[in-house]
């Protein structure tokens, strides 16, 4: 029941960064999770843990429950069985504390299409308790979308919207990023920017759980993979 470790570089030597020192105990534990859709069990007896400075890539065939798992991790979905723990406390009873530390992005970008990038980002900053030390302008420049920041989101391409959604994640300044297919709609440059952002986040003691059919180049970080197909339940019929 362990995670198939792709590259098991030691985590003990990564605590040189200041953020990592403060949050080195941050850990997400998943215990004996079971998820059902309708009458079908998607996965069962799923247990794993994510430490600081780790990127966990959830793999699995279409319909294997990747999105459901991420929604359970974010607390949006209740598992049929099992619990998720943040630093040893179940997230269901420590909702506020947990949500202050995570960012989630599902299939939808979570942007209002009538507002422009800056209005959308200012809004999401004010909905959070904590912010990153970056300014909106800095993040938009980093993602190379500062030239369209005054256009309403409906006028932007899917890739540009995806980049704004990533800007929202960066600006949240949270420890755990839960991203569902973050690479979708991103072009080659976009993917490279995404990889560098993720690398920086994870090296600074952050955590990321994501699903993707794309192989990201995350060599310099502790990168683990988990295949949901191993936890799939054979249909009795």
């Amino acid at each position, binding site marked *: 029941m362990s995670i198939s470790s792709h590259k098991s570089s030691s985590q003990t030597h990564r605590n040189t960064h200041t953020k990592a020192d403060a949050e080195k105990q941050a850990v997400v534990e998943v215990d004996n999770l079971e998820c059902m859709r309708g009458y079908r069990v998607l996965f069962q007896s799923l247990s794993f843990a994510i430490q600081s400075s780790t990127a966990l890539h959830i793999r699995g065939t279409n319909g294997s429950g990747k999105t459901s798992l991420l929604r359970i991790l974010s607390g949006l979905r209740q598992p049929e069985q099992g619990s998720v723990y943040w630093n040893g406390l179940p997230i269901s009873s420590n909702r506020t504390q947990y949500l202050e530390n995570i960012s989630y992005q599902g299939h939808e970008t979570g942007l209002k299409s009538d507002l422009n990038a800056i209005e959308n980002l200012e809004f999401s900053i004010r*909905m959070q308790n904590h912010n990153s030390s970056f300014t*909106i302008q800095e993040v938009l420049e980093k993602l190379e979308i500062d030239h369209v920041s005054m256009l309403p989101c409906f006028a932007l391409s899917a890739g540009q919207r995806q980049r704004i959604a990533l800007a929202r994640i960066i600006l949240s300044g949270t420890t755990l990023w839960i991203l569902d297919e973050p690479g979708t709609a991103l072009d080659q440059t976009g993917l490279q920017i995404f990889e560098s952002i993720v690398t920086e986040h994870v090296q600074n003691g952050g955590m990321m759980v994501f699903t993707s059919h794309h192989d990201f180049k995350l060599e310099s970080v502790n990168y683990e993979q988990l295949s949901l197909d191993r936890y799939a339940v054979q249909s009795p019929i």
Partner: protein
Amino acid sequence: MDNQRKPNTGLLSAFVALLKRDLMVSYRHLGELMHPVIFFLIAVSLFPLAINPDPVFLQTIGSGIIWVAALLSTMLALDNLFRADYDDGTLEQLLLSPHPISVLVLAKVIGHWLVTGLPLIIIAPLLGVMLNLSDSAYVALLASLALGTPTMSLIGGIGVALTVGIRRNGILLTLLVMPLFIPILIFGASAVEAASMQLPFSGQLYLLAAMLVFSLSLAPLTIATSLKISLN
């Protein structure tokens, strides 16, 4: 635009930000915003044409017509309360905010009422003139609508929150909330009718106020829970 690191921006700031965003989005959809108001106008103005334009007759049915039209127009606008947010993923983000969801949904309901309920109150006196409402009835009309429409938005919000995850929810939503709107309709219309006959109408208003306070205190909690269930 230039946000410095703010350690705790607080619940009030989130509440105001959400209200402001919703009003901004509504403002950029002015055409859509006018639908319920135009429906209200058309529905009320068709009655004299179809039934009887006699001023004395209109005076007797006027209060009922205005209240029924206000109820239907609120009903028409309800689904937009969470539909767009559900579709673009911002509702998910709302539920993932560390702030209490019940307070945040109250901001959403207030924002929705400001663009759907308030315009009805503003144009209702005009329609009152059209229906030859007696002079003494205007205060009761405005007061009953001011108490009744927010109650309908709050109660309707529960129905919308429960059905937002269902693709084609039109008739289900109506079936869920319509019975709960009936008391508001009865007391609202009866307040206006009593006032037009120079009778005291404070009893009806007190009852409407009680319903508003009751739904204001409990509906946000119910809406928050219903949304969590709908997005599960």
